[in-house]
């Protein structure tokens, strides 16, 4: 590095420099987080910056995408229109709201439930055998089929869908937490805590729980990504969010008959879906490398 460059580097404000170093060492975290933040912002702003997603307009059916005057607020065919003349741009942005909400809810729910079960199973040996057999069984049921069955049975809405996607994800968290607990409880500081007479509950919360945080954050991002994919898959199959709500899975399912003539109907929601899942996956990979180097080497 030349002297001038070094001087310039040193002249930069401290925080910015720290961020620069962080970004250079953890490019995947930064790329994933920026991409995700961008999509979240668009999703949150969707009702303000787009047309109503359900507004049909038979006059402009199946219009191809037109990127000219992109920022004209009256424009309806930025990403083209569908067979009912609905604005694909508006629908894609609104679809992001459902996907992100499902992903986030499932990640939080599955992590919390799995953490509770995993802590108990790992710490109390008597519970362990029963719980783990249960989890083995639950894990052998393909998650999409389990969710299909739950949705087909109850025909519920979004909440039921979230529960249906959460249930098959729980065993993965339980296994992870249990593995951490089993390793931690052999450590000397747990013996020390037991010998000074700490109660089990206190040991679990004070000594075991903190050790699970890092791997759980990583796992939660992967669960978020997989939940978004499963939600889209279920909506696509007609077992997800009711068809009148604009989700990426629903949009693609409804475009199946027209896609040879109008590929943009599938391209835009599909690309958005891939982009969000990619952002979450990159974030997860980066966090894993940073928080859990041992796991990073194994994967």
């Amino acid at each position, binding site marked *: 590095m030349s002297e001038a460059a070094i001087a310039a580097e040193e002249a930069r404000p401290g925080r910015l420099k720290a961020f620069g170093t962080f970004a250079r060492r953890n490019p995947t975290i930064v790329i994933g987080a920026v991409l995700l933040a961008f999509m979240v912002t668009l999703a949150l702003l969707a009702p303000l910056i787009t047309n109503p997603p359900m507004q049909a307009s038979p006059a402009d059916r199946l219009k191809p995408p037109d990127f000219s005057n992109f920022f004209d607020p009256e424009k309806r065919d930025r990403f083209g229109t569908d067979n009912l003349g609905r604005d694909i741009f508006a629908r894609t942005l609104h679809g992001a709201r459902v996907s992100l909400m499902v992903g986030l809810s499932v990640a939080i729910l599955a992590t919390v439930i799995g953490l509770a079960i995993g802590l108990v199973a790992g710490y109390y040996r008597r519970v362990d055998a029963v719980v783990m*057999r*249960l989890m*083995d*069984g*639950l*894990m*052998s*049921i*393909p*998650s*999409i*089929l*389990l969710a*299909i*069955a*739950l*949705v*087909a*049975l*109850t025909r519920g809405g979004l909440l039921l869908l979230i529960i249906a996607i959460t249930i098959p994800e729980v065993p993965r968290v339980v296994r992870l937490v249990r593995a951490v607990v089993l390793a931690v409880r052999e450590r000397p500081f747990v013996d020390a805590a037991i010998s000074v007479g700490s109660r089990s509950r206190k040991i679990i919360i004070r000594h075991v729980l903190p050790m699970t945080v890092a791997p759980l954050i990583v796992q939660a991002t992967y669960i978020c*990504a997989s939940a978004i*994919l*499963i939600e*889209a*898959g279920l909506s*696509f*199959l*007609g*077992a997800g969010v009711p068809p009148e709500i604009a989700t990426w899975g629903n949009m*693609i399912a409804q475009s199946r008959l027209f*896609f*040879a003539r109008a*590929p943009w109907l*599938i*391209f835009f929601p*599909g*690309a958005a*879906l*891939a982009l969000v*899942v*990619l952002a979450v*996956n*990159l974030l997860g*990979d980066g966090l894993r490398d940073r928080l859990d180097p041992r796991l990073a*080497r*194994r*994967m």
Partner: protein
Amino acid sequence: MGAYIARRLIATIPVMLVVAVCVFLLLHLTPGDPAAVLAGDNATSDQVAQIRAQLGLDEPLWRQFGMWLWRLMQGDLGESLFWGKPVLDLVLERAEPTISLALTTITFAVIIAVSLGVLAAWQAGTLVDRLIMGFAVLGFSVPVFVVGYVLIFVFAINLRWVPVQGYTPLAEGVGPWLERLVLPSIALGLAYVALIARITRASMLEVLAEDYVRTAQAKGVATRPMLTRHALKNAAVPIVTVVGIGVALLIGGVVITETVFNIPGVGRLVVDAIQRRDYPIIQGCILIFSAVYVLVNLLVDISYTFFDPRIRY
């Protein structure tokens, strides 16, 4: 070995039992009358009453479960509401396309993924490695149906290299059969390739750092036998494990792929059953797919001895 296989077979019984209990409770613990659900939306109250009697729904729950399990073990998965035929027959009629799709996908995915993973590990840290791993992250992120439609659009509609959709039975010749399976296999296998390539790379990296690999290189073993015979064989156990676990991914994907490509397989059967709320079909297919998953992973366990003779049972 025989004793080991027998022991492992017995160990799958509790797992399958848990699956059966879950599937059974799913129907009986969700709010609403199971008889009404099973009878479908257009059923008369007589039909509901008939199903109620048939299932013994007035009996205590554990007895209902016993009866259901007993019939299950005799291969009776119930009767489809729409088709009025045993679920097992319907599944068997549609088994060929699904098995064909699964087998071609696994074959192509394992070959490609292991090659990519070995290449990435051998070239670790280089551009090639980064490209392959970047492709793997992408493979995890793009959903099956999006890949499927892109493939159909490019290769079937625009380039006209392969037929658009559908399935040709194997009996009509290997060529036509394979021709229609190419695109669905790629779409279905993408995430699976990503998964296996990543674990192959990780496992190979670990083995390539071992002393005996350096010794082999020092002795002048050429690169190719060093990678395949010395390293890959020792890296195989985690790879085979993931191939087994990844079958869960395939099963979920089969349902979607068959819808995208209009393949009349078991997956389509399930999807059609959703719209018709043909619950016995969904229930039966969950049981069958879960059993397949458990059996595949049993085979994986047994295959360990082949790759690593130090593992003895």
